[in-house]
């Protein structure tokens, strides 16, 4: 009974967060627009990278880059969710939730449910964009379904990090400040370039960067097909980011509730 009530609260808060994103075009536009522009610039300008010896076998550079664009987009979903939560704190909306008889975790889970839903929007956008511009998903419909799951889960994981930052800082400007960091962390992974072709120390950083695992997990169904190894690596990367995000969120929420 209590579980059902909590699920209803999470769903209601998730719906609110999704609506909030669609009602703030300045939040939604960067999530889809920036990664799409970068994708266009990369594939247009560096398309011959596939000819470099050692580059993985791909039908086209767009096929390779799609995973990076989706990953970047999910990271921006996380940042945007963090900003929205920080705004809730600033305007006192979080107090409204704290003063209600709901589970404390539902407050964060509602927002994470929204980031997962936005992950589906991201996957839909980029898969469609890729197919329109000539990319091919080697793993077929099952591969597309797998991409949707991985992108949605990774959006949720990054949402956890965004929520942790928002709860710790309580200010939207601070969360917004990490925006450039998203690019740095992303470029230090194999999101846009094969790990094997990177120079040191970037290659070593990319090796241990969980974003590489997530990017390669999302990329595998596009360029090769479904493989258990890539899937597990992708899920492991998501678990690392998500675990860190959820743990930090829980700590920050507890601290915020204690100090008011």
């Amino acid at each position, binding site marked *: 009974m209590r579980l059902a*009530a909590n699920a*209803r*609260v999470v769903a*209601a*808060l998730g719906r*609110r967060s999704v*609506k*909030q994103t669609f*009602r*703030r075009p300045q939040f939604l536009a960067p999530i889809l627009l920036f990664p799409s522009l970068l994708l266009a610039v990369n594939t247009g300008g560096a398309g011959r990278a596939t000819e470099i010896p050692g580059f993985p076998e791909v039908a086209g550079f767009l096929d390779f880059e799609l995973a990076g664009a989706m990953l970047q987009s999910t990271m921006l979903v996380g940042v945007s969710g963090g900003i929205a939560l920080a705004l*809730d704190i600033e*305007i*006192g*909306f979080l*107090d*409204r*939730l*704290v*003063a*209600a*008889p*709901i589970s404390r975790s539902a407050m964060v889970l509602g927002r994470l449910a929204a980031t997962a839903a936005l992950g589906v929007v991201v996957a839909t956008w980029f898969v469609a964009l890729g197919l329109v511009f000539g990319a091919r998903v080697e793993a077929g419909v099952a591969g597309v379904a797998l991409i949707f799951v991985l992108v949605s889960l990774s959006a949720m994981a990054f949402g956890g990090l965004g929520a942790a930052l928002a709860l710790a800082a309580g200010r939207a400007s601070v969360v917004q400040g990490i925006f450039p960091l998203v690019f740095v962390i992303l470029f230090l992974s194999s999101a846009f370039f094969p790990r094997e072709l990177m120079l040191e120390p970037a290659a070593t950083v990319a090796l241990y960067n969980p974003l590489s695992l997530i990017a390669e997990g999302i990329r595998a169904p596009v360029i090769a097909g479904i493989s258990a190894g890539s899937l597990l690596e992708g899920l492991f990367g998501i678990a690392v980011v998500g675990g860190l995000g959820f743990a930090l969120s829980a700590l920050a929420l507890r601290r915020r509730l*204690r*100090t*008011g």
Partner: protein
Amino acid sequence: MPAAIETHALARSFKGDVVAVAGIDLEVAEGEIYAFLGPNGAGKTTTVRMLTTLLAPTGGRASVAGHDVAGEADAVRRSIGVALQEAALDPLMTGRELMLLQATLHALPRAEGRRRAEALLERVDLADAADRRVGTYSGGMRRRLDLASALVHEPAVLFLDEPTTGLDPVSRLTIWEEVQKLNDAGTTVFLTTQYLEEADRLADRVGIIDRGTMAAEDTPAALKAGIRDPRLELTIADGGADRARDVLTRFGEVAPAADGRVSVSLGGGRGQVAAIVRALDDAGLMMDSLDVVEPTLDDVFVAKTGRGLDDQRAREQEQRERSGDEQLVVEPARQ
């Protein structure tokens, strides 16, 4: 009558030994309207945040609707409605969406939540604006929506933190009428305010808080009566003030009043007025004006704390004008 709110030595301090609430005892009976009066930074909001489970006390204890705020926070949350100082509304939501969300937060069945949301929107005169985004609402509409959302689960105790601050007189009056109606229906109301008129008009009892401690507590009438007797202020015509003073001395303590008027205390109450007028008439003295002046809650505040609420507001206004920023917050709303 059982207590709806009870605190014993309730205290809250913050980092750096900042004591916001220094151990207050209060008891609010069921069905009562209790006004917590004090200037910014006195500890009003911190007290409300502790009573509404938003902030953990660092000392003492408190119970609301029979539940301990620290140990039975969930039961407290089910029993209370809260409308906070800065109406905590999402400007991107519509009024109806907010009401339905609030109903979900309080686990009301969907149909019941919809029914109550519609009824409350109607009641606070927001039915026509229900599908507009809150960001387009006026200050008064936002307060009314906030109040309605606090009532969706029919709470036994309603907390209103400065419910009319910044509102125009008409919106203020609307909120007051609504609060009075709620109380008539049996809801206990705990409100904080900086407005003496608000406390005077609404409250059964008033607690005056200053620098985190209770300076006084009683009914508005008793608080005022405890300060001094009412006074009769007169303007005597044709320079008869000196002779009038001689006559008035027979009735009570005489003192000069503003604008060259003469004032006498009414130790025997308002009933003395007729006798004073007759005595002045017998002495051949004419009056241009006559007023009975009752002590105000501001007088009470000055007597109990050594400074006036209006003094502080004037200082804040002066600071705002100096900074040229109308939005300046002199002290943090949350201590």
